Structure formats: C-alpha cells, structure tokens
C-alpha cells in the first residue's frame, strides 16, 4: 500500500468525507468511516479525525447499544471541551476501519464515554490511546485516508 524505506507505512485505505456530513459545502473537517463492534452488532459511523483531541469519543447512544458502558472503566477523566468540562469514563472499545483498498484494521482502543457528551457532536478519533499508535496519511486529491500500525 504505502511504504517508508523498507518498512510498511500503511496497509489499508478508505475514503474520507471532507466536511461536516450535515452541510452541503466542504469544510476543513475530515470524517473517517469506522465500525464499532459489540453484542454481535457492527455499527458503521463517521468519526471526526482530530489529532488535537486528547481522547477518542464514542457517541453515548451507540455506546449503550453496544454495551460499552458495561465495560470496566480503565480511568475517569474530566474532559475539557468547547461545551465546558465533561465527566466520563475511559473504556476499551472494539472497532474496525474497513479498507476500500488493501487490508482492514481491527482492534481495540481507549475511548471516552459520557452520558453528558452533546448528542449533536460526532464521535471522535483522538490522539491518546488511538491515533498515537497508528500511521496515517491523507491524499486530499482522492479523499483517501491511509492507515497502518505505528512501529
């Protein structure tokens, strides 16, 4: 897929949406299709790629349906957001990025869950516990998001 020297940089790619899904005009936001897994369900949704976000966030309604709120929390945090601080738990959530080219990535990563997370905010792919462990790159001319393991 993509290599850097002799090592593999990315083994899969998927198309991203450049702009808020609910508005017709493109903007600076990048949304990546991600599938969340649990209770025998696969829930494909768009997640905002946000390297400036401390934590990944999963929409509370999706977390409830998948039973993620029943996972043993591995931490509690007070997350500073533009809506003010929000209290919540950090849990490990199974997910998949399904490749349109190459191989898909399936794994488990740390997500922030809170019933107070605003309903109209998207789920987020943030840095700690997720993006920090991935190689990723964008090809804007083709709206391709490339991904692989960070080694």
């Amino acid at each position, binding site marked *: 897929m993509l290599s850097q020297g002799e090592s593999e940089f990315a083994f899969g790619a998927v198309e991203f949406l450049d702009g808020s899904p609910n508005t017709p005009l493109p903007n600076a936001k990048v949304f990546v299709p991600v599938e969340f897994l649990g209770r025998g369900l696969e829930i494909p949704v768009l997640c905002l790629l946000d390297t400036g976000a401390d934590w990944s966030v999963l929409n509370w309604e999706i977390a409830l349906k998948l039973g993620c709120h029943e996972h043993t929390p591995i931490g509690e945090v007070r997350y500073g957001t533009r809506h003010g601080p929000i209290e919540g738990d950090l849990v490990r959530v199974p997910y998949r990025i399904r*490749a349109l080219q190459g191989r898909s990535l399936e794994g488990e990563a740390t997500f922030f869950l809170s019933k107070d997370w605003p309903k109209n905010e998207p789920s987020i792919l943030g840095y700690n516990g997720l993006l920090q462990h991935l190689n990723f790159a964008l090809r804007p001319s083709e709206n391709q998001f490339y991904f692989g393991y960070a080694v």
Partner: protein
Amino acid sequence: MKKVLAPPVFQSTSQESRSEIQSDFRWLRERAKKFSGRWVALRNGKLLAATENFNDLVDEVRSNQLDVTLYHRC
C-alpha cells in the same frame, strides 16, 4: 495511566470492502438537513430507516434484516 495509554490491540484483516460509502456521503450532503436531529440508516446511498433515537433505529434494522453501510445522526 499506563493502562489507559496502552497500545490498541491490532490485527489487519481482509474484510470485504464497502464501496458504497461514496453514495452515502452524497446522500448526507444532499439530504441530511431534512432529517435534522434524527438518526438515519443508509445503504448504497439509499435511506433505509430514520428514527428519533439510535436504539430504535438499530432494532428496526435488525428486525427487518437490513444491511447498513452507514448510521448517522443528522
């Protein structure tokens, strides 16, 4: 904190791709505004179902055995 920041458990898989995602993106750009505040289930750029809450949407999808390529809250 070490556990919180632990590397994700990864594997690469050969899942069947879902090339319909472009059609779903197009549907969102053109029609999401009409469904503001509601959850929708899409497949290949077609609306399968729309509900007020996510739980009802997934239940409807499962009871009708629909294959969804994208869930989204408009």
